[in-house]
């Protein structure tokens, strides 16, 4: 076993240095910039349009007369600046338990209440998710001033209690986190798949494969290559996560703290994200390494890339069915199927707080990595090195 690990390490060290110390690794690190730039461009256009068309709804808990004053003030202001630019207000009569009423309103989807204004015109108080939206608070102050018929210079005091997410939007936000995490995992693996498939082309084209095959077991070489690529991509992943967090901190008010918290918490989620990325990469990587090992030229690898990409998309779609339905039959099937398991389980980490399924899933996925590598190395020996007697495929793993 020690020799196996040492052999794999020799290959991994060579591949890792050849990848990371090459000039092309800089381009690899810059690769996510392109989709991020595209996303940023289209996102900002979309956000601007959304800002113009979808103003937040503020629920006003006040007697009808006071709400009428506020509504009149809003109408007056809308004549001047346009209705689309102004915060929307919806009136609700006060009920006994203000806290319960507020909680219910914040959970409401129809209309999608962003904040609740209570305390009447004399002692207004605002509770809601408004930390990134100072314009809405300013507009409300203006409306209250106008409704009270005060001097414009005498701006009312409007204390704001910020709520990151309302109870009604939490599950939706977590589902979004799950989907984003799955998509990130999918795109990262997709990006690496062609690289992994062409891993053995170099050795096969410069004939060093013969020297390697005479010195170690083929599965040790496979493992070495796979882990070298994993180490290089984890290095890149850490760079990307840090760069992403820094960017978010700079451009988004409140920074990363404003992101919806996954069910297992951020530290656990990030740890699981890295583990499931490794597992997803190892599972797909092992399969792609085996597929790519059958190719003799870069052209053949390119030809293989298209069906492989489609297969990955199918598996991604399968894993996505589990979101919001983790315990449904498709959700459980996606968690059990080895190739969709890491993506599904990462989504689960965003939506569900229990830990034991993750431990079980990681062991299950590791078993499949070992199995694919074992069968793959036997297949490589038989199909590429033309070694050994012919065996039916179901006996390959035992040969």
């Amino acid at each position, binding site marked *: 076993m020690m020799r196996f690990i040492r052999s794999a390490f020799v290959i991994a060290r060579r591949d890792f240095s050849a990848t990371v110390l090459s000039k092309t690794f800089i381009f690899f690190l810059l690769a996510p910039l392109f989709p991020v730039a595209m996303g940023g461009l289209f996102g900002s256009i979309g956000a601007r349009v959304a800002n113009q068309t979808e103003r937040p709804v503020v629920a006003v808990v006040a007697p009808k007369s006071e709400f009428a004053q506020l509504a009149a003030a809003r109408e007056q202001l809308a004549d001047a600046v346009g209705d689309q630019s102004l915060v929307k207000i919806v009136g609700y009569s006060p009920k006994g338990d203000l806290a319960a009423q507020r909680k219910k309103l914040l959970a409401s989807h129809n209309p999608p209440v962003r904040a609740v204004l209570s305390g009447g015109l004399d002692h207004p108080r605002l509770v809601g998710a408004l930390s990134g939206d100072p314009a809405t608070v300013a507009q409300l102050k203006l409306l209250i001033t106008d409704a009270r018929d005060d001097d414009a210079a005498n701006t009312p005091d409007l204390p704001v209690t910020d709520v990151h997410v309302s109870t009604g939007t939490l599950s939706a936000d977590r589902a979004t986190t799950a989907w984003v995490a799955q998509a990130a995992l999918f795109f990262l693996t997709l990006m690496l798949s062609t690289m992994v498939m062409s891993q053995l082309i170099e050795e096969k084209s410069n004939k060093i494969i013969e*020297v390697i095959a005479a010195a170690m077991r083929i599965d040790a070489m496979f493992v070495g290559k796979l882990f070298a690529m994993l180490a290089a991509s984890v290095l890149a992943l850490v760079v990307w996560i840090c760069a992403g967090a820094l960017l978010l901190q700079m451009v988004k008010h409140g920074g990363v703290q404003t992101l919806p918290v996954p069910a297992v918490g951020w530290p656990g989620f990030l740890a699981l994200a890295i583990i499931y990325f490794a597992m997803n990469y190892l599972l797909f990587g092992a399969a792609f390494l085996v597929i790519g090992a059958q190719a003799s030229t870069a052209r053949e690898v390119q030809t293989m890339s298209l069906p492989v990409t489609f297969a990955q998309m199918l598996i991604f779609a399968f894993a996505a069915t589990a979101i919001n339905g983790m315990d449904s039959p498709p959700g459980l099937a996606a968690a059990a199927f080895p190739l969709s398991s890491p993506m599904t389980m990462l989504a689960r980490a965003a939506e569900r707080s229990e830990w034991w399924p993750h431990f079980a899933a990681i062991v299950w996925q590791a078993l499949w990595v070992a199995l694919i590598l074992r069968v793959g190395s036997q297949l490589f020996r038989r199909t590429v090195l033309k070694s050994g007697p012919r065996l039916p495929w179901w006996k390959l793993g035992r040969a």
Partner: protein
Amino acid sequence: MLRQASSGTLAVEAVDLVKDFGETRAVDGVSLSVPTGSIFGLLGPNGAGKTTTLRMLLGIIDPSSGTRCVLGRDRPLEAAPEIGYLPEERGLYPAMHARDAIAFMGALRGLPIAEGRRRADVLLAEHGLGDWGRKSIRSLSKGMAQLVQLLGTIIHKPRLLVLDEPFAGLDAINQGRLEELIRREAHAGVTVIFSTHVIAHAERLCEEIAIIAKGKVAFDGRVDEARSRLRPIVRLRTRASDGPWRAAIPANARREGHDYVFELPEGGPEPLLKALIDGGAGIETLAIERPGLHDAFVAIAGARTAEAMGQEPPQ
């Protein structure tokens, strides 16, 4: 423990190795015994099955049937740290520095990378490539790159060296250097197996050979034994064109210019000489030549091939 042969230990022993690629039988029942510390040549024309035999001996591929024992191990890869292998198709990572390439090949065989680099510097300096250690492989000439790979093959001080067509692509000077290196390794106790289709190299270097033709071993033994399978050749030129001495010349003697060329008769040189002198042949020149390995190879491989095809051996 190495297996014992009658004359000592065996570094490599193969019994009835067979290798089929689909419907094609590339190696058909090859058995070999390579004594420890010897230089062993695997001779045969291209496509005879030499490389496939070597790959089976090294454990790169498994035989369809048969067994092999390399340095006392039935699974050759277990002996990999004690083996150096130079494949027929040379290959190195083009971007690697020469010293790193040598150290990497050592690391594949279990030599720590730092020690590999240290030894690589020494070896490169010894072979006149001291200034090229930190140059990439792609900047070296083909001959230099081949030398680098050869140094990588011996960097970990193997007990068994397997060289597949090592002289291919080398100029005469580098061929001489390689022969010297092989002799030096053998002198140090290393067993060397090399394949070649150039008989002169085997003739100069080998103590033992195996001749492979069409996947079968046609001969396995000492070079002297192979040569002794053929009778010495007599080359005779006489002053007299005819006479009673002609009866002493074998009927199948051929003429090459003014010379008669024929195998020395069973009775040896004395009866022939007596008949020539008594018959008044007037011997101008008479040479009795010992057949070379080339003649032995042609005779052995040709006869075996003809036998396999069910035809008479060529005259």
